[in-house]
């Protein structure tokens, strides 16, 4: 019978209308010693206002430098069942489509070898298993790999690529986000499991600029679906939206970031040359508007939450690239970026930080991309455009 701890502070987190992680840990703690001690240590952390976890070290499975995050209690005498409480990341499937058979098997494996606590999904997108011992790592890996699953990324490596649900369930996806994610995962297995980068590197693929997975804020490389043609307008459907009470002037036209739309009460007009393809109007009037023409992606680099300079969004590097299997052009471009990072990056320096330190000009020159207007992040702040004496005399 697992030890029962008094948890008055954690109990507070069960009040209110939202699901509570404390309730879930308590359920696991009723039958699992690790979960019980985890709860006890967490209560102590809240009481003492400090964390009692150490992480890192030498744990892992043979041949892999990723996928297991060593975690240890700094109070092993008090909470012996969480003396080792390692996290295992299983490479999630693109779009998070699991069969119920797999979910049941994963839970059975985890009940057998771990705390029973999971995190679906971690902020990296992995299928996360929380809390196991060092000696159980190899058996867990064997169980999952025998069923066709693999570990995800961790450490100074390519992290498990993730994507929005894309064309599987969304009609607005301009690219096959699932196939791109699968292809990236297969192509760069070594980069994911044998850490050789200066620091972590994340890919996130969104089918359109609505960016449901917030790739622009969460990935070192954001791949965002876009299109080259015009937006087709069905004026009858526009009239229907107006009839149903939509204030088209306020909700659509005035919200357009490039002010490329106008509406006279009868007809919605779009100056496509000025459209920045943000998807706002299309997402609001799905029946009336749709993208046409060539589909592809915009490639952005460099977002990171806790930058020295503050949270940073990704920066457009390639305004449009065709994204068709086997994605050779895209992969070659990424390899050039990694070369630049490998050459100049310091330990624990993300690629976006390196670009800021070295300058966008040097980065673009190295990867062989010409400066383009779409790369200008903010008006009057384009320090990567330089002119030679000869240019100035023209």
């Amino acid at each position, binding site marked *: 019978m697992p030890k029962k701890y008094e948890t008055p502070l954690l109990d507070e987190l069960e009040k209110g209308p939202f699901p509570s992680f404390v309730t879930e840990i308590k359920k696991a703690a009723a039958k699992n010693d690790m979960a019980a001690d985890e709860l006890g240590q967490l209560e102590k952390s809240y009481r003492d206002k400090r964390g009692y976890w150490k992480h*890192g*070290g*030498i744990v*892992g499975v*043979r*041949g*892999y*430098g*990723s996928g297991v*995050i*060593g975690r240890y209690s700094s109070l092993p005498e008090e909470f012996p069942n969480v003396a080792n409480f390692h996290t295992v990341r299983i490479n999630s499937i693109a779009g998070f489509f699991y069969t119920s058979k797999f979910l049941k098997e994963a839970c059975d494996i985890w009940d057998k070898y771990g705390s029973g606590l999971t995190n679906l999904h971690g902020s990296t997108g992995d299928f996360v298993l929380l809390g196991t011992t060092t000696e159980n790592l190899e058996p867990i890996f064997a169980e999952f790999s025998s069923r066709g699953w693999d570990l995800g990324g*961790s*450490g*100074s*490596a390519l992290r498990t690529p993730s994507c929005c649900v894309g064309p599987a369930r969304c009609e607005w996806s301009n690219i096959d986000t699932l196939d791109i994610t699968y292809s990236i995962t297969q192509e760069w297995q*070594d980069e994911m499991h*044998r*850490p*050789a*980068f*200066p*620091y972590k590197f994340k890919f996130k693929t969104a089918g359109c600029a609505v960016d449901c997975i917030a790739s622009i804020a969460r990935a070192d490389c954001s791949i965002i679906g876009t299109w080259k043609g015009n937006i087709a307008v069905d004026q009858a459907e526009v009239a229907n939206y107006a009839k149903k009470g939509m204030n088209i002037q306020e909700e659509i036209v005035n919200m357009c970031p490039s002010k490329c739309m106008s509406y006279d009460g009868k007809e919605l007009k779009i100056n496509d040359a000025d459209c920045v393809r943000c998807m706002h109007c299309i997402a609001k009037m799905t029946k009336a508007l749709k993208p046409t023409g060539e589909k592809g992606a915009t490639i952005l680099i460099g977002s990171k939450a806790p930058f020295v300079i503050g949270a940073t969004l990704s920066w457009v590097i390639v305004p449009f690239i065709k994204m068709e299997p086997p994605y050779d052009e895209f992969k070659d471009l990424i390899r050039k970026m990694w070369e630049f990072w*490998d050459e100049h990056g310091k*330990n*624990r320096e993300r690629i976006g930080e390196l670009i800021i330190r070295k300058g966008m000009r040097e980065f673009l020159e190295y990867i062989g991309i010409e400066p383009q207007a779409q790369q200008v992040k903010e008006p009057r702040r384009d320090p990567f455009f330089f002119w030679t004496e000869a240019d100035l005399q023209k």
Partner: protein
Amino acid sequence: MEKEEVKKKIYELVEKSMGKKKLKSSDIQKTISAEAGISRDEVKDALKDLIDEGKLIYTYFGGSFVEIPPK
């Protein structure tokens, strides 16, 4: 250069750095390829063998490093 010789060089480099500096995989690749005049892919391949054989391991201390496993 024979792969076994590259593996030996890598192991010696990691051993020499023990207690002084933790080496990243890229540090090893750069150093050995420059010293031995071979490509980084060859070094990477030899390093992969050493890891798979358990003679070297990956560790994580705020970044990922390659080290000799504890006895």
